[in-house]
């Protein structure tokens, strides 16, 4: 069984999962803390609609998904900025609309329905060399930009009003974050599919939140969560012959439940070691 894991397609698949997961895990920290993880979910479905329409019209699905998700990301940012309608309402409407458009496009593109289906649940084992290259460039670009502007993203997440007063261009960084989310969702589309993209962007960050007292800690733990879940999910999916993305999603969800149980925040302690001491002392009493 282990021989299978050394096959080139398996190595490519593992790299693809780790790359797309890492970009999502880092983006997720800011999206979750800003209460915008639902925008991530909506963008994932818009990307699916873009890919499905592209298949129907003969365009490259990645290009179609990227264009449509970028347009949506910028529109949702504009809606949030204007504040005339609650962001949640705009997202809800566009979420439903994009999913309906995607379903319609998939049904109309019957010769390509299988390809479209891959964008819904992902197909990590089917990633080609070219796709891996595109995916690597996009993921590394997202990770690079986040690393470059981590300070600015931290400031606008903690205190947008104060950041603006200090002269930071809050508007620019807010839109940049949405653009990065859109790119990350398009990367995820090919690897884990639109459905599990939501898990990739939200769960590692939420798990990390339970153990973090700073953005840096949260970023590291979020990255580690996705790394461990991806490798574990990969091994389990190969052993049990199950879809990799779905297994990674289940492992992430189990990880979330465990994190709630072990949360240093809920136990009001400063580290997991201190938390274990508190629990042990409680049991001794």
């Amino acid at each position, binding site marked *: 069984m282990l021989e299978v894991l050394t096959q080139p397609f398996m190595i490519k698949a593992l790299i693809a999962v780790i790359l797309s997961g890492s970009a999502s895990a880092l983006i997720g920290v800011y999206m979750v803390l800003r209460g915008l993880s639902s925008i991530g979910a909506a963008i994932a479905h818009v990307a699916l609609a873009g890919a499905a329409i592209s298949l129907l019209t003969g365009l490259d699905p990645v290009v179609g998904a990227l264009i449509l998700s970028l347009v949506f990301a910028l529109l949702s940012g504009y809606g949030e900025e204007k504040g005339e309608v609650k962001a949640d309402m705009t997202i809800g409407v566009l979420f439903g609309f994009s999913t309906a458009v995607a379903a319609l496009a998939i049904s109309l593109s019957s010769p390509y329905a299988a390809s479209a289906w891959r964008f819904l649940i992902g197909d990590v084992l089917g990633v080609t060399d070219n796709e891996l290259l595109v995916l690597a460039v996009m993921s590394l670009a997202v990770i690079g930009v986040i690393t470059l502007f981590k*300070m600015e993203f931290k400031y606008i997440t903690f205190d947008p009003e104060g950041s603006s*007063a*200090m002269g930071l261009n809050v508007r620019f960084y807010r839109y940049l974050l949405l653009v990065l989310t859109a790119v990350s969702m398009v990367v995820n589309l090919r690897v884990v599919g639109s459905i599990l993209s939501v898990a990739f962007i939200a769960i590692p960050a939420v798990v990390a939140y339970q153990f973090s007292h700073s953005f840096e800690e949260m970023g590291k733990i979020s990255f580690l969560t996705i790394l461990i879940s991806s490798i574990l999910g990969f091994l389990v999916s190969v052993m049990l012959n199950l879809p990799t993305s779905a297994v990674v999603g289940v492992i992430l969800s189990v990880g979330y439940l465990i994190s709630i149980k072990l949360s240093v925040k809920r136990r009001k302690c400063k580290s997991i070691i201190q938390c274990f001491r508190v629990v042990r002392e409680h049991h001794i009493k």
Partner: protein
Amino acid sequence: MVLNQQPILEDLSFSIVEPSFVAVVGPNGAGKTTLLKTMLGIIKPVEGEIRVLGRNPVEDPGVRRLVGYVPQRERIDPLIPVLVKDIILMGRLAKKRFPRRATSEDLEKARQVARLLEVDQFWEESYAHLSGGQQQRVLVARALASEPSLLLLDEPFSAVDTPTTQLLVRLLRELVDKSGVTIILVTHEINVLLKHIDRLMLLNRRIIAFGKPDEVLDEALLTETFLKRVQVVASDGERIVTGVSYHA
């Protein structure tokens, strides 16, 4: 000033001599925060012009680098995981150019204001672990870390303990006297400030009165500001304002 198509402040005309300690009081919805945001250039006046440190903050946003701002603490999510040292350093780094690296001077200055505000012992702590008063002191330390010429504070005494209020009032007065910083403070806690401020502004959509506290502290003017009867009583030789309600 207009916000969401609603006029918030009208017929505003005043100037402040540097350095001064100015308090702005008025009921909720009087436009106090809008006034501060206009001074920062975040809100554009529909008519007229505002000059802050001799510069127009709308046309020249660079002036914000000379201004320290303490927003209302309630507007910041206290559950966001961020360390005290990161918040205080933010005051300096956000005003620097990219890549905003902290130098030893930045760290030294940040530590210095942390000691001044008595939050140095929380340097490596999470902001979320602090009490309301401690969080407020961290936010003031952040504003002071940038060594501003003008300091704007929005409700700094809201829901904070008495020792923090006393520490802040004493410290702000020292800043005006020793460092020449001009302070404009929006507050509900008028009584704790009366002995310490140079000017008092009564605001309710327009300036009702602006001048030395002794001149402005008039029952008729206060009643006009708060739209209900406000009394000024003498106690131990000090004047105390009673009956102030912030819900006009």
